[in-house]
């Protein structure tokens, strides 16, 4: 059934009793042309584009929990493409372009809200770094502009631009097309779209092993729902990538860190855009529901526990209160953690592996949600064709051997 104002109206008249399933919940078949491990946003998008653009429909997406239950449901919903290096610019901008048409493409309102992402500069080093971004982005044809403190305040009235505070705002960069999107909607929209194109999304099905034939190529997966044969596997397991790849004997340049976020109680609109500050270590936006959505930095040590430490919440909130004094009286409603897989250069790995038939898409760190459509799109191409398209080509595993790193962390000093 096509979603529209009309269908909402007609179904409403019938008491909303006839809405169809958004996605099927099938049992696994014995064999598939390709298997995607991980039904997060990236995995579901990969399956969707494999079916839609590469004509592959005998695909299964295996998920050990429930679809979209990992980072898609835990991130702070920020989207932007103002990265520094052109390799990063290309893939995040690719995602941005796809996202602009995504609601219609999926017939699912992902609530992409280009409300602007502003990054605050508090010292001269910040200014140098952010202006370098602005110039690099403009050359790449990506919108990103420099604002004076007064212009920044005009765009986000909540901002405190007094000169005598501990970390005064001395400028800001702004990507107007940046903003937020509804995280669950992206995962669910892709799931519904993929399912309608014949993709089997199999939840509560944990992969326990990866089978390889005499030549060393992959030939199937062992799961909690039995063995499934396939010659092509795409691993899109985010924080659990190292664990899954180890099943194929591949060691990765990855570490999994907890990333915490929290929300306030809902209040009437007070925050029109997304604001980030790396010097003060805080970023914040306001959801359509009215909650202030606040992100912390990654925890200090690797972990798969999705729980938050009190000191992390404290460190995040003292920064937020310093940046936005009026929020001091608001209250924290919910605090949670996700797991992000981080590479040494803070850029993703999208590529082949030493194992024939095994492909990996990981290492998105804190950029995963921003990249989802683009990541799925290029990875679909890689898994379907066996060769990366231009945008994905630089993000090989091999770059760590040759030293051709794409170091967003070192260059950008931008954490999120």
């Amino acid at each position: 059934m096509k979603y529209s104002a009309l269908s909402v109206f007609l179904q409403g008249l019938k008491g909303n009793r006839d809405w169809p399933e958004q996605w099927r919940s099938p049992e696994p078949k014995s064999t598939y042309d390709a298997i995607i491990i991980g039904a997060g946003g990236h995995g579901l998008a990969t399956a969707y584009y494999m079916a839609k653009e590469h004509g592959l429909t005998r695909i299964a997406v295996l998920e050990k929990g429930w679809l979209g239950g990992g980072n898609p449901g835990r991130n702070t919903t920020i989207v932007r493409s103002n990265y520094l290096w052109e390799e990063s610019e290309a893939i995040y901008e690719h995602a941005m372009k796809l996202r602009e048409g995504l609601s219609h493409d999926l017939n699912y309102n992902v609530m992409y809200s280009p409300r602007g992402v502003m990054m605050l500069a508090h010292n001269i080093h910040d200014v140098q770094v952010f202006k370098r971004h602005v110039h690099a982005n403009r050359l790449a044809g990506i919108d990103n502009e420099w604002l004076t403190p007064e212009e920044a305040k005009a765009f986000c009235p909540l901002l405190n631009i007094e000169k005598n505070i501990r970390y005064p705002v001395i400028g800001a960069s702004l990507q107007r097309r940046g903003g937020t999107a509804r995280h669950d909607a992206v995962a669910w929209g892709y799931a519904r779209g993929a399912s309608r194109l014949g993709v089997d999304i199999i939840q509560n099905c944990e992969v326990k092993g990866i089978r390889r034939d005499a030549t060393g190529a992959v030939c199937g997966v062992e799961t909690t729902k039995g063995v499934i044969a396939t010659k092509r596997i795409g691993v899109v397991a985010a924080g659990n990538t190292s664990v899954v790849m180890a099943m194929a004997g591949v060691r990765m340049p990855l570490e999994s860190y907890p990333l915490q976020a929290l929300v306030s109680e809902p209040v009437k609109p007070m925050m029109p855009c997304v604001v980030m500050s790396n010097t003060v270590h805080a970023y914040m936006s306001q959801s359509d529901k009215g909650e202030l959505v606040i992100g912390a930095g990654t925890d200090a040590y690797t972990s798969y526990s999705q729980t938050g430490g009190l000191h992390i919440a404290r460190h995040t909130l003292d920064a937020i209160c310093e940046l936005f004094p009026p929020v001091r009286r608001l209250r924290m409603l919910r605090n949670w953690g996700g797991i992000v897989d981080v590479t040494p250069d803070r850029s993703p790995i999208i590529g082949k592996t030493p194992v024939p038939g095994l492909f990996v898409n990981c290492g998105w760190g804190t950029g995963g949600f921003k990249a989802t459509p683009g990541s799925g799109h290029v990875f679909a191409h890689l898994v379907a064709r066996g060769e990366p398209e231009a945008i994905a080509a630089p993000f090989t595993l091999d770059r760590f051997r040759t030293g051709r790193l794409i170091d967003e962390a070192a260059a950008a000093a931008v954490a999120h």
Partner: protein
Amino acid sequence: MLLIRCPYCEMDRPELEFRYGGEAHVARPLDPMATTDEDWASYLYVRANPRGLHAERWRHIHGCGRFFNALRDTVSDRIMTTYKAGTPRPAATGGGR
């Protein structure tokens, strides 16, 4: 906030006093120039990142200043044991609390 037993102070101390140092027992090649690009990349970047027991480095940077190793369950964050740098990884025993 974890409590971590510093093997040099022989005392449980709050996590805030420590700095995480990544995977333990990743030894620097004795003759780096003799290693292949693959081996060097593996030393520099490849990490076990296990879901479960993890041998890792910590430094009691705001305490005695020493680097040491810990055996931690990365799922529960429970630290099974800590031991001095340079000593081999022990069997996963001992109370973590």
